[in-house]
C-alpha cells in the first residue's frame, strides 16, 4: 500500500507536518516534526527513483479519477531525480536549522516558522511531481507565499523590502504562467500536461500556442531568475534568515528550471522550440549575460551573502546555457549542474550561515581573519568555493566539462572559451573572500568567533564531502542526469 502511494505521500507528508507544527506551540516540538518529515522525504524520493528506474514512468491518479479527468501525478527519471535533490537538501538542512533558527527567529514564532518551511517544501515537491498544468500553479503559489514569508523573517528591515519585491515579481510571474496555461487550455481543452502535448499535435504553430509559450517562458523565467528578470534574487537571498537562504538557494530556482525543461521538451516539443523559434539563441545570449554580468557584479559586493546571491544568478546562467546548447551532452551538463549547484551553493550558504551564527555579520570586512578562528568551517567554504570555480575534483568541474563538450559538439568552440573565461571571474570573487578570510589580520568582530556547534558543522561538511565525492565519482549524478536528458530528448520524437 505504501509503495503504491509514494507519490501522494511525498507531497502530503510535509503538508500534514505543517498542520502539526501549527498546532504545536513550542518551537522544539515543531522542529522535531519538521526533522522527522524532512528525513522521511529522501527515503520516499529514493523509493520513487528506484521504482522509476525499474519500471518506467509512474502515473498516479489523485482521487482515483483517471487523467485527464482528474489530476495526475507523474514521476519520470527527470523529476524523480529532482525530487531526490530537493528532499536531500531538506533533510540535510533540518539538523542545521535548529541552532540557526533559535538564534535568528524569536522563540514564540519558531513553530510557525517551521510550518511555513514545511509548506514551502510541500509546494516545491508538489510542483515537481505533478503532471497537471494548473496544479503546478497552485503548488507554485504555496511555495512562493511560503518563500516570501521566510525571506521577510530576516532580521534586517531590508528583508521586508526584499520580500515585498519578490512578492510583486513572483506574482507577476505566476500570473503570466496562468495566462499561458489559460491560452493552452483554450486551445486544447485539457490541463493534463501529457494530454496537452498530444492534443497540440498539428496546432503547434498557431498563434495562441506561440503566445502561450511566450507567457509560460517569461513567467517561469521570473521564478528561476533568468538574467534580466533576476532583480528580486540578490536582496531576497542576502537578507533572509540563514536557513531560508540555504533552502531557497538550493531548491527554489532549480524547480523552476525543471518546469521550463518540462514545458519545452515534453509539452511543446523540442523541434518547435529549438528549430522553428529562436529560443536557443535567446537563451544563449541571456545565459552568457548572466554568466558574465552577474559574476562581475558579484566581484564588487561587500556583503558575502549578496555576493553569493549574485554568483547564483551567474550559475543559473550555466544551467540555462545547457538548455541553449540543446544537444544531449549540453543538456546533461545543464541537469548535472542543477544538482551540483544546489550542493555547492547550499554548502557555501551553510558555512556563511555558521559565521553569521557566531559573529552576527556577513560583511566582508568583519570576516577578516576568521579562517584562523573557524578553520574547519572556512576550509569547507573554500572547497565549495573551488567547486563554484570549477576546479577538477569537485562537482563544479564535472558540469562545466559536460557543457564545454556540448559546446564543441555543436561546433561552438568560442562558447567553450567563454565558459572557461567566465570561470575566471568566479576565481576573482571567491579569491577575494579567501584572501580576506585567511590572509588578513583578525578583525574585531571575528575575535570572539569559534567553530559553530556540531549540528551546524556536520551538515556543512556532509555537503562539502558530497561536492568532492560526486566530483570524483561522476557515475551516479552524471549517469542519472544523462538518462534524464536522454529521456527528455527521446520524449520529443
Amino acid at each position, binding site marked *: 500500500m505504501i509503495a503504491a502511494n509514494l507519490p501522494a505521500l511525498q507531497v502530503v507528508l510535509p503538508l500534514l507536518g505543517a498542520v502539526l507544527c501549527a498546532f504545536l506551540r513550542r518551537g522544539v516540538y515543531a522542529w522535531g516534526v519538521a526533522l522527522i518529515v524532512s528525513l522521511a522525504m529522501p527515503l520516499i524520493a529514493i523509493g520513487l527513483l528506484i521504482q522509476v528506474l525499474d519500471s518506467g514512468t509512474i502515473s498516479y491518479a*489523485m482521487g482515483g479519477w483517471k487523467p485527464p479527468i482528474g489530476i495526475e501525478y507523474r514521476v519520470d527519471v527527470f523529476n524523480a531525480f529532482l525530487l531526490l535533490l530537493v528532499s536531500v537538501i531538506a533533510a540535510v538542512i533540518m539538523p542545521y536549522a535548529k541552532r540557526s533558527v533559535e538564534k535568528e527567529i524569536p522563540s514564540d514564532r519558531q513553530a510557525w516558522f517551521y510550518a511555513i518551511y514545511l509548506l514551502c517544501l510541500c509546494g516545491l515537491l508538489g510542483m515537481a511531481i505533478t503532471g497537471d498544468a494548473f496544479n503546478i500553479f497552485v503548488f507554485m503559489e504555496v511555495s512562493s507565499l511560503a518563500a516570501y514569508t521566510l525571506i521577510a523573517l530576516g532580521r534586517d528591515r531590508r528583508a521586508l523590502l526584499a520580500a515585498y519585491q519578490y512578492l510583486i515579481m513572483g506574482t507577476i510571474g505566476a500570473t503570466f504562467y496562468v495566462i499561458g496555461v489559460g491560452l493552452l487550455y483554450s486551445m486544447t481543452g485539457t490541463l493534463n500536461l501529457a494530454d496537452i502535448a498530444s492534443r497540440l499535435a498539428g496546432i503547434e504553430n498557431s498563434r495562441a500556442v506561440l503566445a502561450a509559450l511566450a507567457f509560460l517562458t517569461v513567467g517561469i523565467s521570473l521564478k528561476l531568475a533568468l538574467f534580466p528578470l533576476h532583480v528580486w534574487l540578490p536582496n531576497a537571498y542576502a537578507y533572509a534568515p540563514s536557513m531560508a537562504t540555504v533552502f531557497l538557494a538550493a531548491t527554489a530556482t532549480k524547480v523552476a528550471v525543471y518546469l521550463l525543461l518540462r514545458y519545452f521538451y515534453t509539452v511543446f516539443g523540442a523541434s518547435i522550440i529549438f528549430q522553428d523559434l529562436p529560443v536557443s539563441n535567446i537563451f544563449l545570449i541571456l545565459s552568457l549575460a548572466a554568466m558574465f554580468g552577474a559574476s562581475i557584479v558579484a566581484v564588487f559586493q561587500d556583503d558575502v551573502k549578496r555576493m553569493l546571491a549574485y554568483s547564483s544568478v551567474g550559475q543559473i546562467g550555466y544551467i540555462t546555457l545547457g538548455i541553449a546548447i540543446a544537444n544531449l551532452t549540453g543538456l546533461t551538463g545543464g541537469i548535472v549542474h542543477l544538482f551540483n549547484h544546489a550542493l555547492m551553493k547550499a554548502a557555501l550558504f551553510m558555512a556563511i550561515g555558521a559565521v553569521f551564527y557566531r559573529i552576527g555579520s556577513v560583511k566582508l570586512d568583519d570576516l577578516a581573519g576568521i579562517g584562523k578562528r573557524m578553520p574547519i568551517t572556512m576550509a569547507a567554504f573554500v572547497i565549495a568555493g573551488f567547486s563554484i570555480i570549477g576546479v577538477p575534483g569537485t562537482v563544479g568541474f564535472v558540469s562545466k566539462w559536460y557543457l564545454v563538450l556540448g559546446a564543441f559538439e555543436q561546433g561552438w568552440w568560442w562558447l567553450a572559451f567563454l565558459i572557461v573565461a567566465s570561470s575566471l571571474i568566479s576565481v576573482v570573487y571567491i579569491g577575494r573572500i579567501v584572501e580576506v578570510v585567511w590572509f588578513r589580520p583578525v578583525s574585531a568582530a571575528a575575535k570572539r568567533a569559534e567553530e559553530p556547534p556540531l549540528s551546524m558543522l556536520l551538515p556543512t561538511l556532509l555537503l562539502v564531502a558530497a561536492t568532492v565525492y560526486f566530483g570524483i565519482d561522476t557515475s551516479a549524478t552524471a549517469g542519472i542526469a544523462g538518462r534524464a536528458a536522454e529521456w527528455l530528448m527521446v520524449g520529443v520524437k
Partner: protein
Amino acid sequence: MVLLTLLAAVTIGIIRIRNLFGVVVLGGIYSFLMASVMIVLDAVDVAMTEASVGAGISMVLMLGTLYLTKTEETVPAHTPLLPLFVAVATGAALVFGTFALPPFGVADTPMNLHVAPYYLGNSIQDTLVPNVVTSVLSSYRGFDTLGETAVIFTAGIAVMLLLKGKRDVKPGPKRRSVRR
C-alpha cells in the same frame, strides 16, 4: 458589453486617482462589476466568491492597511517609459495570441468539447451532486482544492507571523503623515 466597458472606465479611474482611499473604493466597485460580468458568463459560484472576496475581504484588508499607513500617493519620480513598454509588449503578445482563439460563446471549441462534457454528463452518477462546479472542485480536482486550502493556510500563518505580537520598532526615519 456595457458592463465590460464600465470595467474599463473604472480601471482608468484607478490609474488616475492618487488618493488611495478612492482607489480602494473604486477597487470595490470594480469587484462588483466583475461579479456581475461573471454572472452573465454563467459563473455563479465564481461571482459569489468574487463579490464576497473582492468587494468584501479585500476591501476590509485594504482599508485596514490604509488606516495603519497613509492615504496619499506621491507622484513617481522616474519616467513611465519602461513600464509602458513592458505593459504594451504584454498587450501585444496577448492581442497576437487571443485573436487566434475561437470567438465568444461558441459551443464547439476544443475547450468545451474535451473534458468538460464528461463532468457535466457524469457528475450526478459519480457523486450525486448536481452542482458540477462543486463536484469538480471537491472531487474530480479535489487535490487542487487541497492545494488552495494550503495556500490560505500559508497566508494565514504568514500574516500572523508578520503582524502578531508586539511591534518591534526598528530604527528608521519615522514620518507619520497627517490623515484626513
